[in-house]
């Protein structure tokens, strides 16, 4: 795989599924580094940047977006069959994205409310991550993932290893940045204590609570945090919304939200 040994550049593709394209911008925003990357790999397919060859055989494929249509299902299976190493990157590809909120509702009802002629829309009732459908070799979480994660993954893959991925909570990074804790000093709900780092604690550094863009951290305690939010005066619906953000269908957050709803219903509200 190492370019210097074989002399042949590995072939790379970047595919888009249901998404906002923001993760692909992680590549495009690399500036000069993107040129350096283009020296090391052959960018075979990356529609947003130019080259289009979706069916070409590649060594590594980055997948952005979630599966929301029958056509998506066919495409990802096809991509799996002609790609060596698959990286699902971003909240949509790893957890279904914000559009997975439809998983908790009647998707057809939403279609009729949003579109004037819903009969032209052909989509599945759910939005699901790539790993629900094909074997994914590496997941990079985040909305969007940062460039260091993406470059780190490519670098590690070129070495023939897997990248180191921190599952530390956002709080660890928040304190490394010397931000003042918004939960403690402002009583503001913040998802940092249950969210994995990667963003550099961006929102808390600007005095806002974490939205959990990078998804569930390991060894998380959603019930305890939800209980503390309740003590801050948040209503069950408001606490549920904290967990139902861009990573709403990540199993840990999906279950946390369900538990809050079930407990609330049990209280006869």
């Amino acid at each position, binding site marked *: 795989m*190492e370019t210097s040994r074989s002399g042949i550049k590995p072939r790379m593709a970047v595919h888009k599924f249901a998404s906002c394209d923001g993760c692909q911008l992680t590549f495009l925003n690399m500036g000069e*580094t993107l040129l*350096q*990357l283009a020296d*090391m790999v052959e960018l075979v397919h990356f529609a947003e940047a130019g080259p289009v060859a979706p069916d070409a055989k590649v060594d590594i494929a980055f997948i952005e977006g979630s599966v929301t249509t029958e056509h998506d299902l066919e495409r990802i299976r096809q991509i799996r069959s002609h790609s060596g190493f698959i990286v699902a990157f971003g909240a949509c590809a790893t957890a279904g994205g914000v559009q997975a909120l439809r998983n908790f509702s009647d998707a057809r009802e939403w279609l009729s409310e949003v579109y004037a002629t819903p009969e032209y829309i052909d989509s599945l009732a759910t939005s699901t991550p790539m790993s629900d459908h094909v074997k994914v070799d590496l997941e990079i979480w985040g909305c969007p993932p940062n460039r260091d994660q993406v*470059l*780190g993954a*490519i*670098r590690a893959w*070129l*070495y023939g290893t897997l990248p*180191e991925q*921190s*599952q*530390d*909570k956002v*709080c*660890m990074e928040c*304190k*490394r*940045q*010397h*931000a*003042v*804790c918004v*939960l*403690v*000093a*402002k*009583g503001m709900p*913040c998802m*940092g*204590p*249950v969210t994995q780092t990667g963003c550099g604690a961006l929102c808390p550094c600007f*005095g806002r609570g974490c939205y959990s863009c990078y998804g569930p951290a*390991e*060894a*998380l*305690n959603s*019930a*305890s*945090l939800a*209980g*503390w939010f309740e003590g801050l005066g948040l209503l069950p619906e408001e606490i549920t919304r904290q967990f139902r953000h861009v990573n709403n269908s990540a199993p840990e957050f999906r279950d946390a939200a369900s538990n809050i709803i079930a407990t609330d219903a049990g209280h006869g509200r």
Partner: protein
Amino acid sequence: MDRTLQSQDRYFLPRQSFQSLIDQLALQGFSCVGPTMWDGAIIFDRLDTVSQLPQGVSDRQAPGYYRLESGGDSRWFSWANGPQALKPYLFPSREVLWEGTVDENGGLSFKERLTEPEPLAVLGVRACDLAALAIHDAHFLKGPSPDAHYARRREQLFIVAVDCSHPASTCFCVSTGDGPAATRGYDIALAELDEGFIIDAGSDRGKLILDQLPLSEVNEEQLDQTRSELDAAIAGQTRALPEGPLNRILFDNLDHPRWDDVAQRCLACGNCTSVCPTCFCASENEVPSLDGLSSEHSREWSSCFTQGHSYISGHAIRPDTRTRYRQWLTHKLGSWIDQYGRSGCVGCGRCIAWCPVGIDLTEEVGAICRESGDE
């Protein structure tokens, strides 16, 4: 010896002349940092003028709770510590230690990355943080391999301590024996009065600064005033660590049900260890360049609450919050004594106030001692 009982070598610096202390530090080549209000907390930041000091600001702290209130008296130090200790100035949250490069023949070379820190004066250091500094000195500087990065910063550090007249409800430095008065480890120490400061030097460098200040004799009334304020600060502390051999008690109770109980509440977020002035755990990471020809070896603050902290040979030996919280408490209050000759807790209470779900270390260790019949 309690310095506050001695009147010799103690002087009075009027409030209106306090700027001269900051100016003298600058003249001696120090960058000065001190307490400022930022984002709803007392944070140490660059300090050029007294107008940046938190005048009339007081704090309210409780488990998982911190708020500032303005509009008090003329004083600048009527508050207990905020989240930040001296720690970041000597042990930065992230720094590159060395880098490795590959030459054209494939050979490896390594280069240490040592910084050349500027002289730094920190104004407003409390007794608990002086005690924590002594612990960090023991950890980083003593032993066969002193940490060069820490040592260089430490040599450049000048400390202006201030007696703590306003401990928070979360403070318990009296029970750890570390406060509220600054008694050692400072260059200059202050005790604040309405009209100014009682000041003394704890080092030759401190004396040099004092010689340049417009000082006058301190009177008995002023000394009485600081003594009674310290007495009140001592009497006002309601939290305490249990007495007794915590090392033995904690390690005799590794299967105590309280560990499960606290794990139900603990978020394993690491906030307690990050704000702790004595916690020093770090992870070291390799950050290779994209071309694979160089790599930076950096260290950053880590915590016994992370998975990586106990990751060896393919798995984490402390996979859950119960074992991680237990590791923290048994080390901080127990095995630390074997390592450094004292407990790792200086009673600053930061871990209590800045725990997002308000877990109180004194309550947890108290429960283990009580329920095991050791107290």
